[in-house]
């Protein structure tokens, strides 16, 4: 697995066409890997009738809401988790 729990990651800001399961509001955002959920066939390929193989790692990725939304109403400890495929994540260097 490429990412260990706790790893800081950035969601790729890619405007890849076709069916993707990475929501627009998370593109380019920085969070952390909470856990590896498992490996699954790639939905981007399944969506067009392909096998989606080889399976891709899927991570539960956490974000601080205050990092996602400028006008977020709530404490800094409010988090949002989304399930993101490894090929949509890159390591993010730098400190919190």
């Amino acid at each position, binding site marked *: 697995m490429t990412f260990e729990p706790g790893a800081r990651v950035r969601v790729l800001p890619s405007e890849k066409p076709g*069916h993707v399961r990475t929501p*627009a509001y998370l593109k380019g955002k920085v969070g952390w890997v909470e856990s590896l959920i498992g490996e699954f066939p790639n*939905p981007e390929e399944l969506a*067009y009738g392909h096998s*989606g193989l080889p399976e891709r790692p899927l991570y539960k990725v956490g974000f601080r809401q205050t990092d*996602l*939304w400028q006008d977020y109403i709530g404490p800094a400890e409010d988090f949002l988790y989304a399930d993101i495929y490894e090929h949509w994540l890159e390591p993010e260097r730098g400190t919190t």
Partner: protein
Amino acid sequence: MGGSPGGSIDKGQHEVEDWERLADAINGALGAKGLQSTDELRRAIESLENYRDLSYYERWVAATEKLLVEKGVLSSDEIDERTAEIERRWDGP
């Protein structure tokens, strides 16, 4: 969709109609037989030009048709014809 502005949430629940149950069932049956995947259905729904004008199950029906036609299982013409027949039957003599 996530994070877009939105108004208050309508908590009303409409009675699921028989045709909506059928839309659900056809997709479930096609999926169970490996003829269609959830991902294909999602992709087909997302690609609907009139996505925002259709209700939830209307999107399912439109997307199901799109996939069946795409795969050459049915043609839009025969669906049109049969739909017209059914509507005539429902409208009565």
